């Protein structure tokens, strides 16, 4: 039951008609911002995130430079018009935490030691929010990094999983997010089977956690196939 008492799953279907383990319609584009070294746009249903990558470039102020390796800087931001109740522009605490968490989701995939003293700056802008914004942003940022020619061990792919009305689901929409018993974001390097981001809040049993991990892994791989497709087609 949602907070409003509304049933979130009726006859095995979610409020938007999806099956529990069904992803929303996903669209991906690469190279949408020509002033950036790399850029991408990813849509999961109505959630739209843009990512741009600048660099590697010289890092100022100099005292921030690491002489042995480059750094990754990341900024996650939600546009004021992206949500129902206008969000004041500028970073709030959630954006500060998500900026950190997204950076740590992408960093393991980069060869930062190839760029001492330099920085790679990744910007994620959510221009329309309908749940699962951080994973949409990570998928976009990963495409933008590859598009920019940044050396990477693997792409980074992310998806959200959770539990609603007692059922395990994939790719939570905004309304589902607000009414879920659990909401979990997972990012991984898809060909290495390594997890780079894991955040969960809600109430689940140990067994449900294992099942959700499995669901996340399977669906990240589906998203990866789409990332592969858009990169190959762009340059094909």
């Amino acid at each position, binding site marked *: 039951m949602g907070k409003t008492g509304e049933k979130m799953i009726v006859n095995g279907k979610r409020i938007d008609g999806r099956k529990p383990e069904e992803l929303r319609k996903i669209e991906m584009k690469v190279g949408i911002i020509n002033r950036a070294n790399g850029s991408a746009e990813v849509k999961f249903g109505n959630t739209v995130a843009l990512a741009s990558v600048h660099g590697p470039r010289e890092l100022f102020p100099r005292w921030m430079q690491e002489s042995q390796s480059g750094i990754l800087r990341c900024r996650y931001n939600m546009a004021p018009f992206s949500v129902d109740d206008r969000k004041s522009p500028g970073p709030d605490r959630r954006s500060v935490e998500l900026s950190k968490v997204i950076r740590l989701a992408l960093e393991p995939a980069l060869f930062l030691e190839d760029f001492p003293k330099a920085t790679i700056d990744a910007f994620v802008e959510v221009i329309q929010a309908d749940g699962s914004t951080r994973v949409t942003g990570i998928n976009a940022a990963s495409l933008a990094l590859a598009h920019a020619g940044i050396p990477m061990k693997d792409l980074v792919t992310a998806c959200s999983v959770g539990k609603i009305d007692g059922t395990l689901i994939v790719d939570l929409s905004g309304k589902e997010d607000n009414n879920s018993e659990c909401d979990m974001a997972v990012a991984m390097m898809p060909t290495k089977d390594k997890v780079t981001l894991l955040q969960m809040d809600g109430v689940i049993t140990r067994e449900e956690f294992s099942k959700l991990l499995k669901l996340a892994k399977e669906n990240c791989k589906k998203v990866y196939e789409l990332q*592969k497709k858009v990169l190959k087609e762009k340059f094909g």
Partner: protein
Amino acid sequence: MMEKNKEVREVALPGEFLGEKKGRKIGRGAYFEGEKVFAKVLGIPRVNEMEMNVIPLSGIYLPNFGDKIIAVIQSVELSGWFVDINSPYNAFLPLAEAVEEYVDTSRSDISRYFDVDDIVFCRISRVTKNKTVQVSMRDIGCRKLYGGVIIKVTPSKIPRIIGKAGSMITLIKSKTNCDIYTGQNGLVWIRGENKAKAIEAILTIEKESHMVGLTEKIEKMLGE
């Protein structure tokens, strides 16, 4: 959009498996874990008996020892110049590597040799592990480039712009009557009346470098 009858080489993604190492040299666009070799950048795989590599489709220039590059003087110092080499790392051109004669730096202002915004064709003579770079003008062919304009292209496309045994760049030079220098750092210097045509050709090669049938297209473009 895929254009008709243009064969395309398959692009590799970072993390894609290229094959077993088998003692081969691993290029800068690939990495290995044990015996398994993977793509490191988004680009065209180049795998043969000798080498396993991926040529990046985009990306900035990282300086390498021996590269012949085009550089722009950024600042005049006491015993040399800082130069912009189109990289997150700038480089230093020491006086001794640039000028043959003896120069008394306490008396002379070395800007009479090279001043800010001057363009030079030079060679990377040193790169340390943390990317401190030195360039030199000692090699034959290194010189100051007068006049002309510089355009930036993706560094990994320079070989295609040069062509097999220089065939492509020679074609452009002769058809447009321009002087052209290509730097491995992705900078191309062009001087001449028809430079617009030359630039258009070069940018087309950059954009369509991975497509077959490009040479014919460029010939046609320049033929008019």
